[in-house]
């Protein structure tokens, strides 16, 4: 029985290892320093890079985090504070449903509410759709973390004459902060890999753009464009871009864990 469980565990880890090894093998040859610093070149012109997509992903994911992070945290606080009331159940149900909506549907929705009124694709639309995707992840993970904070801390703060909102702001949220941050990182990792909704929103851009009002390139969308192309050179770049995406997300996760882990050891706060 335990052997079977061990085998299952092995099978679960296998895809991750396989993906990493395969992507590294396929992507490494095209991965030069120029690849990080140059703009894409037309087919056949050697030496192109993906700096525009790295910047574009940072902008759209950053915007998504900026929109979904505070809102999601506040929703989670509200849901936790009202966990035993009907509204808490409604929020949880709505959040679960939202996280089940396919990202391509989110993309069409953002297309309708941002791109159509603006009459053009934009980094703004990309950020908005990523915020929709991140929101349920942020809400659920933050809520789980807040639930882990012992209720005795809430009592202690209220007993000192603190108002409810100050208790949340000064005690409960800080106590769960490491876990909340981990949840935000999960949301970032998920959003950074979304290609489908970008087709309708950020659209892609072969040039460097930092404007929220212009179409913008993103890493997953770039992978898509390169991977479906008939050119050997571009397909190699698709693998290299995939490798960059994996490395960036991994680095972000490790950095977040390092920072939160240090803080957790110092103050003994709740962590995942």
């Amino acid at each position, binding site marked *: 029985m335990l052997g079977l469980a061990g085998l299952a565990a092995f099978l679960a880890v296998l895809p991750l290892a396989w993906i990493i090894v395969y992507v590294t093998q396929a992507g490494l040859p095209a991965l030069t320093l120029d690849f990080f610093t140059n703009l894409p070149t037309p087919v056949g012109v050697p030496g192109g890079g993906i700096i525009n997509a790295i910047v574009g992903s940072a902008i759209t994911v950053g915007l998504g985090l900026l929109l979904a992070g505070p809102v999601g945290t506040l929703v989670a606080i509200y849901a936790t504070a009202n966990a*035993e009331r009907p509204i808490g159940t409604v929020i949880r149900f709505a959040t679960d449903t939202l996280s089940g909506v396919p990202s391509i549907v989110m993309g069409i929705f953002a297309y309708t509410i941002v791109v159509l009124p603006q009459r053009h694709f934009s980094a703004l639309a990309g950020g908005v759709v990523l915020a929709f995707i991140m929101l349920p992840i942020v809400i659920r993970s933050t809520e789980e973390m807040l639930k882990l904070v012992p209720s005795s*801390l809430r009592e*202690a703060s209220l*007993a*000192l004459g603190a108002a409810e909102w100050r208790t949340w702001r000064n005690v409960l949220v800080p*106590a769960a902060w490491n876990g909340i941050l981990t949840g935000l990182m999960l949301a970032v990792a998920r959003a950074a890999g979304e290609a489908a909704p970008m087709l309708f929103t950020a659209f892609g851009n072969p040039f460097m753009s930092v404007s929220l009002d212009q179409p913008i390139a993103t890493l997953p969308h770039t992978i898509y464009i390169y991977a479906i192309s008939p050119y050997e050179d571009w397909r190699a770049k698709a693998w290299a871009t995939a490798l960059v995406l994996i490395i960036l997300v991994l680095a972000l996760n490790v950095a977040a864990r390092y920072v939160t882990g240090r803080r957790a050891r*110092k*103050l003994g706060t709740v962590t995942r």
Partner: protein
Amino acid sequence: MTLATQHDSGQSSLPAAGSAAPPRPPGAGPASAPATRIAIHNLTVHYGTFCAVRNVTLDIPANQVTAIIGPSGCGKSTVVRSLNRMTDLVPGARVSGEAILDGENILRPEVDVVNVRRRIGMVFQRPNPFPKSIYDNVAYGPRLHGVRDRDLDEVVERTLRGAALWDEVKDKLHQSALALSGGQQQRLCIARAMAVEPEVILMDEPASAIDPIGTLRIEELIADLRATYTIVIVTHNMQQASRVSDVTAFFTMDEDRAGYMVEFGPTIEIFTNPRNQLTEDYVSGRFG
């Protein structure tokens, strides 16, 4: 009595500024007729349809230690929790009756609970320091109530000295409070409650989760503090009640499991010459 000698030996630090009352031996009862700090009249608490406490009438004397003893489930904790309105946090809890503090019934729903909790502090059964530094734990209350940052150092030091904790923590004020021992954590929680300068400190079995040495320190501290504060301590431990308190209220349960007060008087009377048979049975260990 060991407690009194330890108290007088000078090991413990001075109580907070403004107190001048000389130490009295605990258990000796009121030195003179003391003023009443909180007059509880017909306090009844329901949780939903369950009546947890019925018709408690009790005058908490100022600057004394009032112990509330009795078997589990007799509503001791409910009484103290209703005094600083922690019962507000329990869905379905209903509190009726009066608790008069300076002429005002603090149980009325319209009363400003922040003000009540500021004047009536509370220490809980299990130490519950915030996952913050020792300094920030003590400074939490004063910050809430508008003490300026530049005055905080002085408030924190004075409070920790008053709680006889300063010498143990002065070199690690900015380390996590969670690194302290259980007993130290509980004394920090007492200091945290003292820092907002309440008039009354409620203690809900403050030593029940603490080892014997830590318990002794807490009892010494309580003896120190009653010069400055009015203290109400709920305890399961009858020896503790007899050691630290001036007056004692004995609670028990009715047939419907509602708690009520059987007897209230000077601690020495309750333990040596109780008027009620139920009290005598309990303090002599025949029941409960």
